[in-house]
């Protein structure tokens, strides 16, 4: 590959976690700061990217972890998410480093619908630039689903309050208990732009026979969780069935377990492995002695003599076909009746836009979703932008944050009369980490440790305490040990072909067989003769310009490089160097 192809994305992709993080959090950077016990800085590096490190360090969906290189080199990825919590737990007072309200307003007004993470991110990015921000929120507290759906035993309210307040303190106006009932009205109130971050607030109901008769005992999960969060509901009966296999089901069953449910079962039509809930959520639920029953499809809410008895299920032998398409096949066995007192439905959620009029220029598709540009977040009404769950359906907090950042850039560009489609480019910096002959300014020694478990409160101590946070977080010792598992994937191997004397030292030393010096051939040919087979074609492959002495080329498969720096240590001429890559991600203020 000629040099010009080694661009920002090439290096960014090497940092698997950062590439996978929707907000592109510079993970290895904050993990290194944790290793140096510089928790406040580690926190601020996070906040810059993802606004809610304390929240995300507890409940992020962590798309970075399945991507983490460590998971390919050995079994388990680095505990990226829980190290984020470490930064939040051990930081000092950060108030001096937080963004400040604008000295002067810029005369432009932006309305945000809903106070979930998407809107809060937009506010965080735009308020310091002088925009007058007004958030309309239908509840009496901010935070959206993070507040009303994610249970307190996973996310304590103090953590939410601290990080939400940091945004609201930027001079953001918020109107609680104020559902937007007409977007047309809002637009005519003179806002220069509107951001819709109203989430996906409607939980799906299950319309099978008996539903109406059983109404008092059947609860829609999302509403039920909100009612528990806002303390409208404080109890449930002892035998509880939760129907559904996702994370909402896990939150429902664990919540039920804490407010009276002592025989809680989760029933799902798919297999245990196919259940969409995150593995760690399933583990925690099982630990709390919640029973999982799979391959059962609900057929009827059974009510006898006006009394709700339970739910009748059909047994399935499969739920999805080979391509994971919904294709339930009955097993032919008898139906089963599972008796219970209460049922909680956790079978999906959707957006709702009853407040968006048909004649205000916002086009919807046939699935009733607004047509929104996936990069700019602009709708067909150029003044109206969407983000978070409202834009493309339910996702998670970190996606909502990423959308918020992008939408803030768009709103800023739009209100400066710039083309929102011309996105500011991603930039990068590469800085050599060489300190002395074999000294680098990062720790290149490889830790053999397996992933460390985060300590939890004992099961028996947590069951009846709805508000007690289950995870205790890493103590400092564990945190430092876990941090040393990170491979510093942002410390890149950078090659300078003219310096290479083809001594093979780098090829010979590389513990992961990443390097090959080979005849200059097309990349497909080269792939067949590498020092080790290509296991992950997704990762980058460096092919240098022809080398001076033999006109062969240096090839590096980035997939499994552990950034140990041995290639650079062994290179007599400095043709390999370890250089720290910093992604320059544009923010609204930079454009």
């Amino acid at each position: 590959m000629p040099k010009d192809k080694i661009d920002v994305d090439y290096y960014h992709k090497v940092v698997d976690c950062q590439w996978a993080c929707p907000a592109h959090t510079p993970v290895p950077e904050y993990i290194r700061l944790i290793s140096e016990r510089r928790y406040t800085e580690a926190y601020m590096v996070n906040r810059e990217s993802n606004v809610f490190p304390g929240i995300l360090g507890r409940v992020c969906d962590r798309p970075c972890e399945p991507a983490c290189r460590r998971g390919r080199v050995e079994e388990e990825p680095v505990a990226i998410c829980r190290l984020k919590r470490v930064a939040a737990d051990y930081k000092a007072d950060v108030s001096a480093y937080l963004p400040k309200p604008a000295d002067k307003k810029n005369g432009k007004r932006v309305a945000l619908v809903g106070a979930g993470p998407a809107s809060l991110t937009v506010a965080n990015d735009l308020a310091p630039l002088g925009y007058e921000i007004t958030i309309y929120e239908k509840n009496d507290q901010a935070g959206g689903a993070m507040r009303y759906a994610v249970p307190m035993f996973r996310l304590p309210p103090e953590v939410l309050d601290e990080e939400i307040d940091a945004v609201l303190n930027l001079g953001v106006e918020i109107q609680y208990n104020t559902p937007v009932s007409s977007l047309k009205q809002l637009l005519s109130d003179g806002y220069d732009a509107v951001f819709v971050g109203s989430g996906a607030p409607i939980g799906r109901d299950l319309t099978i026979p008996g539903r109406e008769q059983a109404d008092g005992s059947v609860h829609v999960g999302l509403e039920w969780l909100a009612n528990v969060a806002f303390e409208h509901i404080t109890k449930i009966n002892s035998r509880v069935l939760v129907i559904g296999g996702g994370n909402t089901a896990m939150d429902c069953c664990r919540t039920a377990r804490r407010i009276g449910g002592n025989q809680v079962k989760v029933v799902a039509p798919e297999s245990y492995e196919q259940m969409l809930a995150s593995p760690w959520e399933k583990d925690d639920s099982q630990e709390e002695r919640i029973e999982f029953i799979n391959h059962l499809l609900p057929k009827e809410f059974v009510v006898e003599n006006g009394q709700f008895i339970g739910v009748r299920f059909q047994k399935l032998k499969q739920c999805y076909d080979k391509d994971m398409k919904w294709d339930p096949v009955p097993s032919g066995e008898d139906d089963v009746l599972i008796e219970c007192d209460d049922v909680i439905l956790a079978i999906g959620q959707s957006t709702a836009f009853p407040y968006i009029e048909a004649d205000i220029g916002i086009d919807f598709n046939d699935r009733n979703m607004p047509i929104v540009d996936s990069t700019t977040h602009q709708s067909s009404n150029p003044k109206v932008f969407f983000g978070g769950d409202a834009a493309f359906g339910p996702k998670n907090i970190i996606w909502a944050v990423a959308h918020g950042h992008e939408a803030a850039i768009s709103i800023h560009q739009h209100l400066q009369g710039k083309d929102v489609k011309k996105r500011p480019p991603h930039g990068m910096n590469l800085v050599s980490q060489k300190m002395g002959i074999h000294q680098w300014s990062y720790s290149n020694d490889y830790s053999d440790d397996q992933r460390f478990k985060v300590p939890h409160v004992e099961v028996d101590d947590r069951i009846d305490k709805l508000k007690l946070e289950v995870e205790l977080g890493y103590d400092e010792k564990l945190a430092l040990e876990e941090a040393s598992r990170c491979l510093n994937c942002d410390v890149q191997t950078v090659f300078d072909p003219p310096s290479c004397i083809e001594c093979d030292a780098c090829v010979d030393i590389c513990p992961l067989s990443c390097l090959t010096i080979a005849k200059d051939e097309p990349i497909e040919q080269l792939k067949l003769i590498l020092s080790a087979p290509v296991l992950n074609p997704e990762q980058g492959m460096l092919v240098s310009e022809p080398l001076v002495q033999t006109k062969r080329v240096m090839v590096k498969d980035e997939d499994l490089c552990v950034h140990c720096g041995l290639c650079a240590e062994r290179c007599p001429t400095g043709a390999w160097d370890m250089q720290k890559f910093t992604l320059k991600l544009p923010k609204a203020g930079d454009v």
Partner: protein
Amino acid sequence: MSYIPKPKVSHPGLAKNKLGLTIRDYEGGLSTLCAGCGHDSITAAIIKSCFELSIEPHRVGKMSGIGCSSKTPGYFLSSAHGFNSVHGRMPSVTTGANAANRNLTYLAVSGDGDTASIGIGQFAHVIRRKLNMLYIVENNGCYGLTKGQFSATADVGSKSKRGVANEMDPIDPAAFALQMGAGFVARSFSGDKDQLVPLIKAGLNYNGFALIDVISPCVTFNNHEGSTKSYAHVRSHEAEVNVVDFIPARNEIAVDYAKGDATQVTLHDGSTMMLRKLDQNYDPENRLEALKQIQTHQMKNEVITGLLFLDPKESEMHDMISTPKKSLREFELAELCPGKEALEALNKSWG
């Protein structure tokens, strides 16, 4: 020299050999040589050869003398036996080891100083003895370990790092070995593993004395302009006479050789060497011709590489002295020391 140990993790797709081992299982300690030293590259070639041959590491005796080169057995086959002997005395120690146990594979690494300066006498006699071993000279034209003085293999006119030209005629280890009667003589270059690895494999399987003189640049003291043992000089003055493909016994010959393209040599153990000629006139079974070619190329300032000579007869010391097949340690005490009567009977038999 690096400060961190080499991480133990390896590529999950690494090939396994017949013993179920990966190439990483043939490594040794982390090298303390200068970054970029040719010797490290030869270490890597040895590791690759032993891995590909599925040699059991504990059935190898690693022998060496003194020098940077002689340190390298520490960097491969950590579970092999080894003897890091006195400067220039590796051949005698190897002779002793081999006499006591002929059933190990003897892989010796020496330097040009260790071999052609202080060790030239021992070198001559171990060849004459036809000791069954692979003797690798890691030839950098200088004494690396003692800071780069010219060794006996330095070419006339080759310049030291300070710019002084060598005036003494060089000893050519390959030519010398040919004259002493070596059965297998090759020359290669540390920077060319494609050539070196098959030669090492063939040398390890040769039953008799095998020498590979490997030009191995000393990056620290002898890789400058004006040196005839630098990476750049060797690459631009190399004359490769043939290419060897080594096929161990019982392996199918997978590559198709066009007729006349390659000559096939079968070794005593059934393994095969396919020799592809690059120089059509070169006949590696002709000792006289080999000597002449080495001289001719040297006069043209060229470094001749490839398999220079092969005696297909493969004879070794134990054949000459008719020793038993077993190693000493396999004999019972009663066999080794049959007692007074046996001694008397023997004495009587001489009348």
